[in-house]
């Protein structure tokens, strides 16, 4: 296992060196890995193999995409990282720790260190925007004063300060996803996982969400996004891990990586996708093509 792990690392290093002219100032080689999957195999009850000997490493501060058609194992991969699904074989390491060796009682502690964003937002319907975000702090034992300070702050960051007392069903999809991101990020986790965060959203809103994730990434948080929105992924020009039928078929940094501010990023992506100028098909159309 260790041998394979180190080989992966070496491959990563080679790739990083190859892309060094476009890479961010610090190369991945100098960063510790945050997510490590070694020969991870997931078999669902009934015998369906969702992931087959998947090996990949994501380093601290990276923004990486996991892409692939529906049912290829993207969501399973995300679930494996928060131990919602346990692999039948192989190892899953988060920050160097095998998460399948920690005790069940400690799993909540792991999940507090990982922010999670889902396609269906997974907000608590009985709670206002404020309370939804506050819950993530209450879970960790945050004091009332801390909650009162942090929640409005994070809601300002995602641009929802005006909707603080609304309930999820009074918000648009994009707004709900922003709440969900605020909740995932309010504890400032070192790792943020997003499972199809733009799956239910239109292209314009999707760009806003991606801009938000990019902004979070720029604070030093590692972000891993599973998506089938190929167009968006192409425009982001970040590392892409392609999965097909439970196997990694491609893992590369897209050429043309540039360190840019979030505003620059949003303007560029908008311009490239033609959103706002009207007339380009959205991500869903692309997926079926």
């Amino acid at each position, binding site marked *: 296992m260790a041998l394979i792990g180190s080989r992966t690392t070496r491959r990563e290093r080679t790739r990083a060196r190859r892309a060094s002219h476009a890479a961010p100032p610090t190369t991945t080689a100098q960063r510790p890995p945050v997510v490590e999957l070694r020969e991870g195999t997931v078999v669902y009850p009934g015998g369906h193999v969702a992931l087959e000997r998947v090996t990949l490493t994501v380093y601290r501060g990276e923004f990486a995409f996991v892409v692939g058609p529906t049912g290829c194992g993207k969501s399973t991969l995300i679930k494996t990282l*928060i*131990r*919602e699904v346990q692999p039948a074989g192989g190892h899953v390491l988060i920050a160097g720790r095998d998460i399948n060796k920690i005790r*069940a*009682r400690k*799993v*909540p*502690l*792991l*999940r*507090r*260190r990982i922010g*999670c964003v889902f396609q269906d937002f*997974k*907000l*608590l*319907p*009985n709670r206002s925007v404020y309370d939804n975000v506050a*819950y*993530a702090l*209450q*879970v*960790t*034992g945050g004091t009332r004063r801390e909650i009162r300070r942090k929640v409005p702050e994070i809601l300002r960051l995602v641009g929802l300060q005006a909707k603080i007392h609304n309930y999820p069903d009074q918000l648009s999809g994009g707004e709900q996803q922003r709440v969900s991101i605020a*909740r995932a990020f309010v504890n400032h986790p070192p790792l943020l996982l997003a499972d199809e965060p733009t799956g239910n959203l239109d292209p314009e809103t999707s760009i806003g969400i991606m801009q938000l994730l990019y902004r979070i990434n720029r604070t030093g948080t590692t972000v891993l996004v599973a998506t089938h929105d190929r167009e968006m992924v192409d425009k982001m020009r970040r590392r892409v891990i392609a999965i097909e039928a439970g196997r990694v078929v491609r893992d590369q940094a897209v050429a043309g990586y540039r360190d840019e501010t979030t505003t620059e990023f949003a303007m560029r992506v908008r311009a490239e996708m033609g959103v706002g100028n009207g007339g380009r098909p959205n991500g869903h159309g692309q997926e079926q093509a």
Partner: protein
Amino acid sequence: MRKLPFFIAEAFRALRRNAAPSIAAMVTILVTTLLLGVLIPVLKASAQTNSGVRSQLDLNVFLDSNATKAQIARTGKALRKLDHVKRVQYVSKAEAVQILRQRVGGGPLKGGFHQLKHSPLPANPLPPSFKVFPDSPDHLNLVRHEVAPPGSNGKPQPLTSAIQEVTSGRQEANKILSVTGAVKLVLAVLAVLLLIASVLLIANTIRLSIYARRREVEVMRLVGAKNWFIRWPFIIEGILVGVIGAGCAVALLWVGKVTIVDPLATDFALVNNFSTVGFVPLVAALVAASIGVSAFGSGVTLRRFLRI
């Protein structure tokens, strides 16, 4: 425990936001508590008669109403000499009135027989008697034979001429015992069935209300809430449901006691005489049981949604 206010606030929020299932659970608890609250005193009362009957295993040797003191003394001495007799107790005419008064209550007999107007009876028609206690209930018939051995013509020949009649509580006791035994069994079976049904019903109601919120629990888990952090509000909610349901039932029971049972008790000696379980311990037990069942039900039901 620093989080207790938060948990209580969460429980109240859940009750408010899921009013329909909460009310269903409360009504279930109310109905079962009410039924148990009626059934338990009835069961207790029938048990009471039973034990009263059991202690009545003795012989009553009734003497002639006009027996002289010498005759009575002689009969008492003779009875004490018999085998298998543990104790002999003399019941005078006056004491007989007392006993009767105790059984049928005060009322017209309050001042004794001579107070009764237009009575066709002599001043006190009750005969003096001896209560003969055998050393064991099994020797009752043996002693009876000794007191009044059957003569050659088949009629009993009493020990002394003053003895008029010998009765034992046994025949009556056997009848009463078999009747109350049957009643008690039926009531006990009913109570047990009711208890099982109510526990299942409450468990099911709670299960449904939690099932409706399993997505919420799932989200809580994904955000990194520890199991007890999720569980406590549900348990407190269960306790609240139990308290409110049982509280309403107790209020209804109290109203029933004040408006129906208490007036009856002053009018009917029978109701008054049954010393049943006290209202306060009964209420305490019922409230504790309903809280326990609903809190435990919530906690256990939640377990399957908390598996990681």
